């Protein structure tokens, strides 16, 4: 299967003198969902910002579909959509206008936009709020707008940072169903989350970050095995594996 995201020896941070992430390597292939996990400050968001091209790496290479940001900015950016940890909306736009703006930016054909926007609004229970101005939406609704906009563009890579914050159970279910759908359609997904009990059922592989370095990675089985060896206990869930790897070996 084709590699969508390729990260090689990536190091970087906010200051040129102090790296926050160190020598990260990762590959995400078509149809794969990867869970990026780690404690607060482990470097998850910094890693994501480097992949998005919002931060310049100290060294290393990031390619999406074989292209670096420097080679072709438009092609690189059209290959992904991003859902930030905190919804960042334009206050003056309505829900519908946000969807339209994103679709225009990503060059989604108009007919496809109209059809897909209707489906998403219905799926995320936002049909009645389509004309509502973003400034007047609740945090959860704002998050839904972010997610709908990302799903609308249908790129080859979805980068999603803490998507479940503020979402109601129906919203979480809709998001996960849609992610599975786009995954089956061949898109790759990089998702950072703290809700380990949920992501362990949906992600194909995991990467555990600690102090800017990958400390464990692989499928759920690989993670459980590594954690069991590390703690010398029988680890059965991702949450236990997380504790075992990052809590001094205690599951």
């Amino acid at each position, binding site marked *: 299967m084709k590699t969508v995201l390729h990260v090689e020896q990536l190091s970087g941070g906010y200051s040129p003198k102090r790296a926050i992430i160190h020598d990260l390597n990762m590959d995400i292939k078509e149809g794969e969902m990867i869970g990026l996990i780690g404690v607060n400050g482990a470097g998850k968001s910094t890693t994501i910002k480097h992949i*998005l*091209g*919002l931060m310049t790496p100290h060294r290393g290479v990031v390619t999406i579909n074989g292209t670096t940001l420097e080679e072709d*900015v*438009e*092609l*690189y*950016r*059209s290959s992904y959509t*991003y859902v*930030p940890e905190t919804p*960042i909306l*334009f*206050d*003056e*736009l309505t829900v519908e*206008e946000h969807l*339209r*703006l*994103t679709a*225009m*930016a*990503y*060059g989604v054909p*108009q007919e496809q*936009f109209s059809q897909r926007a209707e489906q998403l609004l219905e799926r995320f229970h936002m049909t009645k709020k389509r004309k509502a*101005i973003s*400034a007047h939406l609740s945090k959860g609704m704002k998050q839904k707008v972010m997610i709908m906009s990302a799903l609308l563009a249908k790129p080859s890579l979805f980068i999603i940072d803490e998507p479940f914050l503020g979402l109601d159970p129906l919203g979480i279910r809709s998001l996960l169903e849609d992610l599975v759908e786009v995954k089956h359609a061949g898109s790759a997904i990089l998702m950072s989350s703290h809700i380990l009990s949920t992501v362990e059922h949906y992600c194909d592989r995991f990467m555990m970050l600690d102090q800017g370095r990958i400390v464990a990675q692989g499928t759920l089985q690989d993670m459980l095995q590594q954690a069991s060896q590390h703690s010398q206990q029988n680890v059965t869930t991702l949450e236990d594996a997380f504790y075992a790897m990052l809590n001094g070996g205690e599951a």
Partner: protein
Amino acid sequence: MKEPSGVIQLWFERKQSFTKEIIPYIRYMMMSGLPVFLSLFGILFVYRYVNLLKDVPPQFPIAWIGAIVLTPLLCYSPLRTFLREADVIYLMPMEHKLSGYLKQSMIRSLRNSTLLLLAVLLVFWPLYRQGEGYIGIWFAVILLVLKAFNAYSGWQERRLIWNNHRFIFRIIRWLLMFGIVLAWLKQDSFSFALTIVYSICAVALLYTCYRMMRKSSFPWGRLIDEEKFTIRRLYSFFNWFSDVQAVPPIVKKRYYLAWLIRLVPYRKASTFVYLHLITFVRTEIGGICIRLVILGGLVNYMVADSLGLQGWGAVLSLLFFSMLVTIQSGTLRSAHRHAIWKDIFPLSVTLQQKQLVHVECLINYILIFILWLPTFPMWGGHAYQLIVMLAIVLVFPLIRAMQLQSALRKAEELD
């Protein structure tokens, strides 16, 4: 917990810190040349007003003009409380001790709005003296009593639980006050006794209604919102003159301009045109432009109609208001300057800049064209003046577009 004297000190500290915060922006405003333009305008107004006073036409609607000018000043009592969102956590527990704090705000509000009312009344007085219903100083006394009542009413309306109740009460109060002012200014049509009875009844009716409605003891949410609204408005004004800290925009739907948004074609090359046009229509950027165009249109009409400076007055006025509206529309360029989506959306910087220049130029063309329309009284003659005005309409937006393009290029080089 702060004692009552502590809360008064807190009020003064906040007022002082607010003053300190805005002083640099006032300085930028003073250096911008706006005060000079406003002074020129003031001189022009005084000149016209003095001419009018020398020979007031017999049917001149003094009472109506008085009521239109004085009623807003009588009814509008903005309240600066300097409250912040965090106060809901830190000050709310001592709500019962906040009367001293609030009293300071009310005194300031009443003092400032009364002084403004008196200043305008003073300007209006020579015209009022020539009106039918002149009752001397008593009119000023009545206005002062009504002003105090309106300040009280404004506070009672802020305390009303439901927004729609507040809105309805405010409209009723403004209409009743307009009626009272008009009645006092038109003494020949209304009998003196009838005017007194009407005034007392209107005030009593409002007072009784306020007493009967459900109210909150301290309208935290409303006062904080009002404070935020005032700050946003102030900063969007200062944004004309310098780069002001990011303040979340005031958003209004403005349905009457929604058709403009619908005109933007659905295509990638129009993404930022779409975004910026919505920003213009729904935020204070457009709000201020609309008010400036209305004011400028009125002034342009008056100047063109009177053929001031042999028609060149209208040219200067058009140029002045074109500058003002383009300065205001120019703030659009910084509306989304720090938006993350600029660096996420697959649109090249060149395309983004091109779209921004395009939308700003289009807006300027529309605004300046509307400003020019009311100069129609002088279109029949004065060919030179007309040519210069048309040149302003056609060339000014292009000059602004070139300036914007160069500014964007410089900013990109700095990045």
